Protein backbone atom coordinates (compact mmCIF):
# COMPACT_ATOMS: atom_id res chain seq x y z
CA UNK A 1 0.00 0.00 0.00
CA UNK A 2 1.45 3.41 -0.92
CA UNK A 3 2.15 5.79 1.95
CA UNK A 4 -0.47 8.56 2.26
CA UNK A 5 0.67 11.92 0.96
CA UNK A 6 0.79 13.42 4.46
CA UNK A 7 3.17 10.73 5.67
CA UNK A 8 5.53 11.43 2.82
CA UNK A 9 5.61 15.10 3.70
CA UNK A 10 6.16 14.30 7.38
CA UNK A 11 8.96 11.91 6.44
CA UNK A 12 10.63 14.53 4.35
CA UNK A 13 10.37 17.07 7.17
CA UNK A 14 11.82 14.57 9.66
CA UNK A 15 14.66 13.77 7.26
CA UNK A 16 15.61 17.44 6.84
CA UNK A 17 15.59 17.95 10.63
CA UNK A 18 17.59 14.77 11.26
CA UNK A 19 20.16 15.76 8.62
CA UNK A 20 20.61 19.15 10.37
CA UNK A 21 19.42 21.00 7.29
CA UNK A 22 17.09 24.01 7.27
CA UNK A 23 13.34 24.14 6.79
CA UNK A 24 12.38 27.02 4.49
CA UNK A 25 9.05 28.93 4.47
CA UNK A 26 7.70 27.20 1.34
CA UNK A 27 8.44 23.71 2.70
CA UNK A 28 5.68 21.65 4.25
CA UNK A 29 5.94 21.67 8.06
CA UNK A 30 3.78 20.25 10.85
CA UNK A 31 1.22 22.77 12.12
CA UNK A 32 2.67 22.51 15.65
CA UNK A 33 6.14 23.38 14.38
CA UNK A 34 4.76 26.45 12.62
CA UNK A 35 2.77 27.57 15.69
CA UNK A 36 5.67 26.99 18.04
CA UNK A 37 8.00 29.02 15.82
CA UNK A 38 5.55 31.89 15.41
CA UNK A 39 5.18 32.03 19.20
CA UNK A 40 8.92 31.98 19.81
CA UNK A 41 10.00 34.37 17.03
CA UNK A 42 7.18 36.80 17.84
CA UNK A 43 8.07 36.82 21.54
CA UNK A 44 11.68 37.41 20.55
CA UNK A 45 10.71 40.29 18.21
CA UNK A 46 8.45 41.87 20.85
CA UNK A 47 11.30 41.65 23.37
CA UNK A 48 13.62 43.52 21.03
CA UNK A 49 11.30 46.47 20.56
CA UNK A 50 10.06 46.62 24.18
CA UNK A 51 13.74 46.33 25.14
CA UNK A 52 14.34 49.76 23.63
CA UNK A 53 12.46 51.37 26.52
CA UNK A 54 14.59 50.73 29.63
CA UNK A 55 17.66 52.08 27.81
CA UNK A 56 15.77 54.76 25.92
CA UNK A 57 15.13 56.15 29.41
CA UNK A 58 18.81 57.22 29.63
CA UNK A 59 19.41 58.54 26.10
CA UNK A 60 19.02 62.19 27.04
CA UNK A 61 21.02 61.80 30.25
CA UNK A 62 24.03 59.78 29.10
CA UNK A 63 27.12 61.20 30.85
CA UNK A 64 29.09 62.06 27.68
CA UNK A 65 28.61 62.47 23.95
CA UNK A 66 30.48 59.20 23.38
CA UNK A 67 28.19 57.29 25.74
CA UNK A 68 25.16 58.91 24.16
CA UNK A 69 26.23 57.94 20.63
CA UNK A 70 26.87 54.37 21.80
CA UNK A 71 23.53 54.07 23.58
CA UNK A 72 21.70 55.55 20.62
CA UNK A 73 23.35 53.04 18.25
CA UNK A 74 22.45 50.20 20.60
CA UNK A 75 18.81 51.20 20.93
CA UNK A 76 18.64 51.60 17.15
CA UNK A 77 20.08 48.09 16.79
CA UNK A 78 17.32 46.71 19.04
CA UNK A 79 14.72 48.23 16.72
CA UNK A 80 16.50 46.65 13.75
CA UNK A 81 16.62 43.27 15.48
CA UNK A 82 12.89 43.47 16.11
CA UNK A 83 12.33 44.15 12.42
CA UNK A 84 14.54 41.23 11.28
CA UNK A 85 12.57 38.95 13.57
CA UNK A 86 9.13 40.23 12.58
CA UNK A 87 10.21 39.59 9.00
CA UNK A 88 11.20 36.02 9.88
CA UNK A 89 7.87 35.43 11.67
CA UNK A 90 5.95 36.78 8.67
CA UNK A 91 7.43 34.11 6.41
CA UNK A 92 5.32 31.66 8.46
CA UNK A 93 2.11 33.25 7.22
CA UNK A 94 1.23 35.76 9.95
CA UNK A 95 1.10 39.50 9.22
CA UNK A 96 2.93 42.35 10.96
CA UNK A 97 -0.41 43.84 11.87
CA UNK A 98 -1.55 40.61 13.55
CA UNK A 99 1.75 40.28 15.43
CA UNK A 100 1.58 43.81 16.85
CA UNK A 101 -2.05 43.27 17.74
CA UNK A 102 -1.13 40.10 19.67
CA UNK A 103 1.47 42.11 21.61
CA UNK A 104 -0.80 45.07 22.26
CA UNK A 105 -3.63 42.88 23.55
CA UNK A 106 -1.29 40.89 25.79
CA UNK A 107 -1.89 37.59 23.98
CA UNK A 108 1.81 37.30 23.17
CA UNK A 109 4.57 38.00 25.68
CA UNK A 110 7.96 39.65 25.70
CA UNK A 111 10.95 38.89 27.90
CA UNK A 112 10.31 39.36 31.64
CA UNK A 113 13.52 41.34 32.05
CA UNK A 114 12.20 44.48 30.39
CA UNK A 115 9.62 44.97 33.12
CA UNK A 116 12.28 46.18 35.55
CA UNK A 117 13.14 49.88 35.96
CA UNK A 118 16.46 51.61 35.22
CA UNK A 119 16.88 54.16 38.02
CA UNK A 120 20.64 54.85 37.61
CA UNK A 121 23.24 55.13 34.84
CA UNK A 122 24.87 51.95 36.17
CA UNK A 123 21.77 50.08 34.95
CA UNK A 124 22.95 50.82 31.39
CA UNK A 125 26.16 49.00 32.27
CA UNK A 126 24.37 46.11 33.94
CA UNK A 127 21.89 45.69 31.10
CA UNK A 128 24.61 45.56 28.44
CA UNK A 129 26.85 43.27 30.45
CA UNK A 130 24.23 40.94 31.94
CA UNK A 131 21.04 41.17 29.89
CA UNK A 132 22.79 41.30 26.52
CA UNK A 133 25.25 38.70 27.80
CA UNK A 134 22.35 36.39 28.60
CA UNK A 135 20.70 37.18 25.27
CA UNK A 136 23.91 36.26 23.41
CA UNK A 137 24.15 32.98 25.36
CA UNK A 138 20.61 32.23 24.21
CA UNK A 139 21.05 33.43 20.66
CA UNK A 140 24.31 31.84 19.55
CA UNK A 141 22.78 28.33 19.41
CA UNK A 142 19.74 29.81 17.63
CA UNK A 143 22.01 30.61 14.66
CA UNK A 144 21.79 26.84 13.97
CA UNK A 145 18.03 26.67 14.47
CA UNK A 146 16.20 24.41 12.01
CA UNK A 147 14.08 27.21 10.52
CA UNK A 148 16.12 29.04 7.88
CA UNK A 149 14.78 32.62 8.17
CA UNK A 150 15.07 32.57 11.99
CA UNK A 151 18.60 31.14 11.87
CA UNK A 152 19.71 33.74 9.31
CA UNK A 153 18.18 36.60 11.32
CA UNK A 154 20.04 35.32 14.38
CA UNK A 155 23.37 35.31 12.54
CA UNK A 156 22.86 38.95 11.63
CA UNK A 157 21.71 39.83 15.16
CA UNK A 158 24.59 38.04 16.90
CA UNK A 159 27.08 39.86 14.71
CA UNK A 160 25.62 43.22 15.73
CA UNK A 161 25.06 42.21 19.35
CA UNK A 162 28.70 41.69 20.19
CA UNK A 163 29.34 45.37 20.87
CA UNK A 164 26.27 45.61 23.12
CA UNK A 165 27.73 43.46 25.85
CA UNK A 166 31.18 45.02 25.63
CA UNK A 167 29.90 48.58 25.94
CA UNK A 168 27.93 47.56 29.04
CA UNK A 169 30.90 45.87 30.66
CA UNK A 170 33.03 48.90 29.84
CA UNK A 171 30.54 51.10 31.72
CA UNK A 172 30.83 48.76 34.73
CA UNK A 173 34.64 48.77 34.57
CA UNK A 174 34.67 52.58 34.42
CA UNK A 175 32.33 52.87 37.41
CA UNK A 176 34.36 50.32 39.38
CA UNK A 177 37.53 52.33 38.75
CA UNK A 178 35.76 55.53 39.80
CA UNK A 179 34.77 56.97 43.16
CA UNK A 180 33.47 54.89 46.06
CA UNK A 181 29.97 56.11 45.23
CA UNK A 182 30.32 55.10 41.57
CA UNK A 183 31.50 51.64 42.51
CA UNK A 184 28.60 51.29 44.93
CA UNK A 185 26.25 52.31 42.13
CA UNK A 186 27.68 49.53 39.94
CA UNK A 187 27.27 46.99 42.75
CA UNK A 188 23.65 48.05 43.32
CA UNK A 189 22.90 47.66 39.61
CA UNK A 190 24.40 44.16 39.66
CA UNK A 191 22.24 43.37 42.71
CA UNK A 192 19.12 44.56 40.86
CA UNK A 193 19.77 42.75 37.59
CA UNK A 194 21.40 39.47 38.58
CA UNK A 195 18.32 37.44 39.48
CA UNK A 196 15.97 38.77 36.77
CA UNK A 197 18.76 38.02 34.26
CA UNK A 198 18.96 34.39 35.42
CA UNK A 199 15.19 34.21 34.92
CA UNK A 200 15.60 35.27 31.28
CA UNK A 201 16.52 31.67 30.45
CA UNK A 202 13.02 30.63 31.41
CA UNK A 203 11.67 28.20 34.02
CA UNK A 204 13.71 25.17 35.11
CA UNK A 205 13.78 22.28 32.63
CA UNK A 206 11.39 20.27 34.79
CA UNK A 207 8.70 22.94 34.32
CA UNK A 208 9.39 24.33 30.86
CA UNK A 209 6.27 24.01 28.74
CA UNK A 210 7.86 24.23 25.30
CA UNK A 211 11.39 22.95 25.77
CA UNK A 212 11.17 19.30 24.84
CA UNK A 213 9.43 19.69 21.50
CA UNK A 214 11.66 22.62 20.57
CA UNK A 215 14.71 20.46 21.24
CA UNK A 216 13.27 17.66 19.12
CA UNK A 217 12.66 20.06 16.25
CA UNK A 218 16.13 21.58 16.69
CA UNK A 219 14.65 25.01 17.25
CA UNK A 220 16.43 24.94 20.60
CA UNK A 221 19.80 23.25 20.97
CA UNK A 222 20.30 23.56 24.73
CA UNK A 223 17.86 23.45 27.62
CA UNK A 224 17.04 26.48 29.80
CA UNK A 225 19.13 25.12 32.67
CA UNK A 226 22.13 24.36 30.45
CA UNK A 227 22.12 27.90 29.07
CA UNK A 228 21.69 29.39 32.56
CA UNK A 229 24.72 27.43 33.77
CA UNK A 230 26.76 28.55 30.77
CA UNK A 231 25.92 32.18 31.54
CA UNK A 232 26.77 31.90 35.25
CA UNK A 233 30.09 30.19 34.46
CA UNK A 234 31.05 32.92 32.00
CA UNK A 235 29.87 35.90 34.07
CA UNK A 236 31.02 35.22 37.64
CA UNK A 237 34.76 35.53 36.79
CA UNK A 238 34.01 38.85 35.05
CA UNK A 239 32.37 40.15 38.24
CA UNK A 240 35.36 38.95 40.27
CA UNK A 241 37.71 40.72 37.88
CA UNK A 242 36.17 44.13 38.46
CA UNK A 243 35.65 43.61 42.18
CA UNK A 244 31.87 43.23 42.22
CA UNK A 245 30.02 40.63 44.29
CA UNK A 246 27.33 38.47 42.73
CA UNK A 247 24.38 38.69 45.14
CA UNK A 248 24.01 34.96 45.73
CA UNK A 249 25.21 33.46 49.06
CA UNK A 250 25.00 29.96 47.56
CA UNK A 251 27.34 30.77 44.68
CA UNK A 252 30.47 28.58 44.81
CA UNK A 253 32.81 26.90 42.36
CA UNK A 254 32.22 23.16 42.22
CA UNK A 255 35.49 21.46 41.29
CA UNK A 256 33.83 18.12 40.71
CA UNK A 257 31.25 19.42 38.23
CA UNK A 258 33.61 21.97 36.72
CA UNK A 259 30.82 24.54 37.08
CA UNK A 260 29.56 27.12 39.56
CA UNK A 261 26.81 26.01 41.92
CA UNK A 262 24.27 28.76 42.41
CA UNK A 263 21.01 29.52 44.18
CA UNK A 264 17.51 29.08 42.87
CA UNK A 265 15.90 32.19 41.32
CA UNK A 266 12.53 33.18 42.77
CA UNK A 267 10.28 31.44 40.25
CA UNK A 268 7.17 32.96 41.83
CA UNK A 269 8.55 36.36 40.93
CA UNK A 270 9.05 35.21 37.32
CA UNK A 271 5.45 33.95 37.17
CA UNK A 272 4.16 37.23 38.63
CA UNK A 273 6.17 39.38 36.19
CA UNK A 274 5.24 37.26 33.16
CA UNK A 275 1.59 37.41 34.23
CA UNK A 276 1.76 41.21 34.10
CA UNK A 277 2.56 42.16 37.69
CA UNK A 278 6.17 43.36 37.35
CA UNK A 279 7.29 46.85 38.36
CA UNK A 280 7.00 48.30 34.83
CA UNK A 281 4.61 46.06 32.83
CA UNK A 282 1.85 48.65 32.60
CA UNK A 283 4.27 51.46 31.70
CA UNK A 284 6.00 49.42 28.97
CA UNK A 285 2.72 48.45 27.31
CA UNK A 286 1.30 51.97 27.56
CA UNK A 287 4.45 53.41 25.94
CA UNK A 288 4.37 50.78 23.17
CA UNK A 289 0.70 51.30 22.36
CA UNK A 290 1.13 55.05 22.60
CA UNK A 291 3.99 54.97 20.08
CA UNK A 292 1.88 52.83 17.75
CA UNK A 293 -1.18 55.07 17.99
CA UNK A 294 0.81 58.31 17.77
CA UNK A 295 2.53 57.00 14.64
CA UNK A 296 -0.73 56.09 12.89
CA UNK A 297 -0.91 59.39 11.00
CA UNK A 298 2.58 58.85 9.59
CA UNK A 299 1.66 55.42 8.24
CA UNK A 300 -1.59 56.78 6.82
CA UNK A 301 0.15 59.78 5.23
CA UNK A 302 2.75 57.48 3.63
CA UNK A 303 -0.02 55.38 2.06
CA UNK A 304 -1.91 58.49 0.88
CA UNK A 305 1.28 59.83 -0.68
CA UNK A 306 2.02 56.52 -2.42
CA UNK A 307 -1.52 56.41 -3.81
CA UNK A 308 -1.30 59.99 -5.04
CA UNK A 309 2.01 59.36 -6.80
CA UNK A 310 0.67 56.16 -8.36
CA UNK A 311 -2.47 57.97 -9.59
CA UNK A 312 -0.41 60.83 -11.05
CA UNK A 313 1.90 58.38 -12.84
CA UNK A 314 -1.13 56.59 -14.30
CA UNK A 315 -2.59 59.92 -15.45
CA UNK A 316 0.60 60.90 -17.26
CA UNK A 317 0.78 57.48 -18.91
CA UNK A 318 -2.86 57.72 -20.10
Amino acid at each position, binding site marked *: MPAPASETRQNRFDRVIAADQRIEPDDWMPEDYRKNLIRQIAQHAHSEIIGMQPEGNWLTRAPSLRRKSILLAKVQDEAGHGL*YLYGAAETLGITRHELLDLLHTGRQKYANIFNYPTPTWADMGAIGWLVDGAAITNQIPLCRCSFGPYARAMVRICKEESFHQRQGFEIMVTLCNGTVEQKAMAQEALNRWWWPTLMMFGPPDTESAHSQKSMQWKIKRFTNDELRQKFVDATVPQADLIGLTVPDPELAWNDERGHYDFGEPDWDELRRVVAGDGPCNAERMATRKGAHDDGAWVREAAVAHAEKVAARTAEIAA
Partner: protein
Amino acid sequence: MSDNWNLWEVFVRPRRGLDHVHAGSVHAPDAEIALQHARDLFTRRGEGVSLWVVRSADIVASDPGDAGELFDPADGKDYRYPTHYELPDEVANM
Protein backbone atom coordinates in the same frame (compact mmCIF):
# COMPACT_ATOMS: atom_id res chain seq x y z
CA MET B 1 -6.05 48.73 6.65
CA SER B 2 -3.29 51.29 6.25
CA ASP B 3 -1.01 49.32 8.60
CA ASN B 4 -0.75 46.55 6.06
CA TRP B 5 2.00 47.99 3.95
CA ASN B 6 3.38 45.84 1.14
CA LEU B 7 6.26 43.51 1.75
CA TRP B 8 9.48 44.16 -0.21
CA GLU B 9 12.52 41.92 -0.55
CA VAL B 10 15.86 43.66 -0.08
CA PHE B 11 19.08 42.86 -1.96
CA VAL B 12 22.38 44.44 -0.91
CA ARG B 13 25.56 44.74 -3.00
CA PRO B 14 28.38 44.61 -0.43
CA ARG B 15 31.08 46.07 -2.67
CA ARG B 16 31.45 47.15 -6.28
CA GLY B 17 32.03 44.08 -8.40
CA LEU B 18 30.03 41.70 -6.15
CA ASP B 19 26.48 40.44 -6.66
CA HIS B 20 23.48 41.87 -4.92
CA VAL B 21 22.60 39.34 -2.21
CA HIS B 22 19.22 38.86 -0.54
CA ALA B 23 19.35 40.40 2.95
CA GLY B 24 15.74 40.25 4.17
CA SER B 25 12.52 42.15 3.79
CA VAL B 26 10.88 45.43 4.78
CA HIS B 27 7.36 46.82 4.82
CA ALA B 28 6.64 49.98 2.87
CA PRO B 29 3.79 51.68 1.01
CA ASP B 30 5.96 52.44 -2.05
CA ALA B 31 9.37 51.82 -3.58
CA GLU B 32 10.93 55.04 -2.34
CA ILE B 33 10.10 54.34 1.30
CA ALA B 34 11.07 50.68 0.82
CA LEU B 35 14.55 51.87 -0.21
CA GLN B 36 14.77 54.20 2.78
CA HIS B 37 13.73 51.46 5.18
CA ALA B 38 16.15 49.02 3.56
CA ARG B 39 18.95 51.54 4.01
CA ASP B 40 18.07 52.10 7.68
CA LEU B 41 17.70 48.41 8.43
CA PHE B 42 20.40 46.65 6.45
CA THR B 43 23.26 49.14 6.02
CA ARG B 44 23.89 50.55 9.50
CA ARG B 45 27.49 49.33 9.44
CA GLY B 46 28.56 49.99 5.88
CA GLU B 47 27.28 46.64 4.62
CA GLY B 48 26.53 47.89 1.14
CA VAL B 49 27.14 50.26 -1.74
CA SER B 50 23.89 49.57 -3.58
CA LEU B 51 20.37 48.37 -2.77
CA TRP B 52 17.61 46.68 -4.76
CA VAL B 53 14.05 46.36 -3.50
CA VAL B 54 11.49 44.14 -5.21
CA ARG B 55 7.85 43.67 -4.28
CA SER B 56 7.71 40.23 -2.63
CA ALA B 57 4.54 39.48 -4.56
CA ASP B 58 6.45 39.91 -7.84
CA ILE B 59 8.93 37.14 -7.10
CA VAL B 60 8.18 33.89 -8.87
CA ALA B 61 9.67 30.95 -7.00
CA SER B 62 10.08 27.30 -7.91
CA ASP B 63 8.00 24.85 -5.90
CA PRO B 64 10.12 23.06 -3.26
CA GLY B 65 8.09 19.94 -4.12
CA ASP B 66 9.53 20.05 -7.64
CA ALA B 67 13.12 20.22 -6.39
CA GLY B 68 13.71 16.58 -7.32
CA GLU B 69 12.72 16.75 -10.96
CA LEU B 70 14.25 20.19 -11.39
CA PHE B 71 17.64 19.62 -9.84
CA ASP B 72 18.32 15.89 -9.64
CA PRO B 73 19.18 15.63 -13.36
CA ALA B 74 22.40 17.51 -12.56
CA ASP B 75 23.49 14.64 -10.32
CA GLY B 76 25.95 12.07 -11.66
CA LYS B 77 27.28 14.22 -14.44
CA ASP B 78 30.88 14.23 -13.34
CA TYR B 79 31.98 15.03 -16.89
CA ARG B 80 30.80 18.60 -16.30
CA TYR B 81 33.75 19.15 -13.94
CA PRO B 82 37.39 19.56 -14.97
CA THR B 83 38.52 17.00 -12.38
CA HIS B 84 36.73 14.27 -14.36
CA TYR B 85 39.44 14.23 -17.03
CA GLU B 86 42.72 12.40 -16.87
CA LEU B 87 45.61 14.19 -18.46
CA PRO B 88 49.13 12.98 -19.22
CA ASP B 89 51.51 13.96 -16.38
CA GLU B 90 53.53 16.01 -18.82
CA VAL B 91 50.66 18.51 -19.08
CA ALA B 92 51.40 20.70 -16.09
CA ASN B 93 48.65 23.27 -16.39
CA MET B 94 45.43 23.09 -18.35
